[in-house]
């Protein structure tokens, strides 16, 4: 044993990679040798020559530390004369690093693949089936692309689940401790997670919705003999005897729907960060999405008519339905975009609350 202050391998001041790399390489072989879960021992000695000396120092290794903490040996070291500086280039981390990290995280777990594939199957599958089903109808009961909503109503549950899991799976497994150790700027972690998840959810949902809309268009567009469609508001769906897509219908049924569902997912992520519990957060989000509608359905009687109307109007499902031009409220011309804006505001609020709690709470 050495005495506490002794530095058995004191390094020369300003020791560069060339000076230090060999010791690292040596360490690597020495440590690699005694245990082999796996590797035949004769492989180990072959490794070191190919290792660290070839490192391209993009920036002087340890420059950051060296400036602040003079290396030991020679002049008396400062108060923190810790003797080691690494040959690995040191980087000042920023949001970009956190984003790269979160992208690796989200693509490397199965839940992402599963939730997104199921979402795709539900949206495109159910949407395609309803398009085919409507092809034989005598009556034009709804705008052309609107039956894409049916699949998306189920598909959004997958996005909500994924949004929750992005955060809560880290709490469930203890990964969050590792994550926040690697990146102690908690706000940065939350922001990176939100950005990556939102973009992924938006792109995937929009692609699924666009595919569904295209199926609808190819199956349903064409001449209509009859003009006795059910609702007056769908007059615009028929032009010159042809079943057509209304103004703004494309945008609402693709990008609008994608944005709306991705925002719901982001809200779920925030709720997940607040509750830190998968089942709790998913249940909460199901409640937020479904309860207003379900409660409104059971509100009978004159007295509650206004409340019922409001609950229907501000139900998250109504926002989505309105983007497909089939709103659930009495005002049949309501567009879904104001509700989308409202959802964005609510989501921003929830994210801010999540940020406040994340920075305040112990992990």
């Amino acid at each position, binding site marked *: 044993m050495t005495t506490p202050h002794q530095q058995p391998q004191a390094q020369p001041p300003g020791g560069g990679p060339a000076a230090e790399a060999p010791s690292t390489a040596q360490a690597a072989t020495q440590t690699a040798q005694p245990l082999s879960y*796996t590797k035949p021992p004769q492989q180990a000695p072959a490794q070191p020559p190919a290792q660290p000396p070839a490192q391209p120092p993009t920036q002087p290794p340890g420059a950051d530390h060296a400036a602040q903490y003079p290396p030991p040996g020679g002049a008396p070291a400062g108060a923190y004369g810790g003797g080691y500086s690494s040959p690995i280039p040191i980087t000042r981390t920023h949001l970009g690093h956190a984003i790269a990290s979160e992208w690796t995280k989200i693509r490397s777990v199965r839940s992402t693949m599963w939730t997104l594939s199921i979402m795709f199957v539900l949206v495109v599958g159910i949407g395609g089936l309803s398009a085919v089903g409507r092809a034989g109808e005598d009556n034009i009961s709804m705008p052309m692309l609107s039956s894409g909503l049916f699949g998306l109503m189920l598909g959004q549950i997958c996005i909500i689940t994924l949004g929750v899991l992005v955060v809560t799976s880290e709490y469930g497994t203890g990964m969050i401790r590792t994550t926040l150790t690697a990146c102690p700027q908690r706000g940065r972690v939350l922001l990176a997670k939100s950005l990556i998840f939102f973009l992924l959810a938006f792109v995937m949902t929009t692609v699924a919705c666009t595919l569904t809309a295209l199926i609808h268009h190819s199956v349903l567009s064409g001449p209509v003999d009859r003009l006795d469609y059910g609702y007056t508001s769908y007059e615009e769906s028929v032009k010159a005897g042809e079943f057509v897509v209304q103004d703004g219908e494309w945008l609402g049924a693709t990008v609008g729907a994608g944005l709306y569902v991705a925002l719901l997912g982001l809200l779920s992520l925030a709720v997940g960060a607040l509750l830190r519990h998968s089942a709790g957060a998913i249940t909460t989000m199901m409640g937020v999405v479904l309860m207003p509608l379900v409660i409104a359905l059971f509100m009978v009687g004159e007295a509650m008519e206004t409340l019922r109307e409001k609950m229907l109007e501000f139900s998250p499902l109504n926002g989505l339905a309105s983007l497909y031009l089939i709103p659930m409220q009495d005002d049949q011309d309501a567009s879904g975009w104001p509700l989308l804006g409202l959802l964005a505001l609510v989501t921003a609020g929830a994210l801010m609350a999540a940020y406040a709690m994340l920075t305040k709470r112990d992990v």
Partner: protein
Amino acid sequence: MIELEGLTKRYGEKVAVDHLTFSVRPGVVTGFLGPNGAGKSTTMRLLLGLDRPTAGDIRIDGRHYDQLRDPLNYIGALLEAKSVHGGRSAYNHLLCLAQSNGIPERRVPEVLDMVGLTAVAKKRPKGFSLGMGQRLGIAQALLGDPRIVMFDEPVNGLDPEGIHWVRTLMQQLAAEGRTVFVSSHLMSEMSLTAEHLVVIGQGKLMADTSMAAFIHENSRTYVRLRTPEPERLRNVLHTAGIPAVAVSDGSLEVENVAAARLGELAAEHRIVLHELSPQQASLEEAFMQLTAGSVEYHAHTTAEGPEARRGGQGWGQGWQEGR
């Protein structure tokens, strides 16, 4: 260099860490010892900025953890076992951590090789044994080639070979000039690796001393004598004014007398000795006495007290006792 100053953490009524003040210096392995529930893991969480201290301060080279811009290059930590997502492969787990700190990707296979997990790099840690999980944690700690390494119970779940490897690794890291801070509840384990010792019990500092000093102060040294003529030997010792204790297995134990003197004495009287060996009584015992008043979770199943157990130098025995 890690410095704690009056560090206190309260969870509701319960005080987990109580005015801890000590520092961890570079270049040596510092053992952080305490019985289960003494506050070791809490202290480490406070250091990593995972929990916020109720009072006091904890600094790494003068800075708080969240002020570090490149935390993994600075300090590598093995946290409580399995702070990983069980569904993400070992490789991807390390990759996402490397990316978050701008560490080049080639470092990932390097550390996997270092801990011997190359063959299971693409496997999900869900199926890892406790020992493999520890190795992954150690790989994670070494990923940024940090100046400070901090291991929370690193030998938990490792096989004897793995334990030997961890000991060598820690000493090597310290020899390279790094600060090595390792927690354990096993005195016997620490006595083999640590040069400096910080002992806590119920969140309070019990000792902050070098290992050698701790051993010197706390362990009982004695000489064991074994002879075919124990009665004669006892008489001889008695005449010389040396008290000897007969142990149940037929040997004699003598305290505070050098082995050489006892050997000479036996030779003088032509007594055949089958054994003449200086012994050091268990550090585990000293540790238990030190923390006796502060053990939080007492087991009431063993009839014998700590005094009855002795000689736990092998890690295995110590491990059993520490449980």
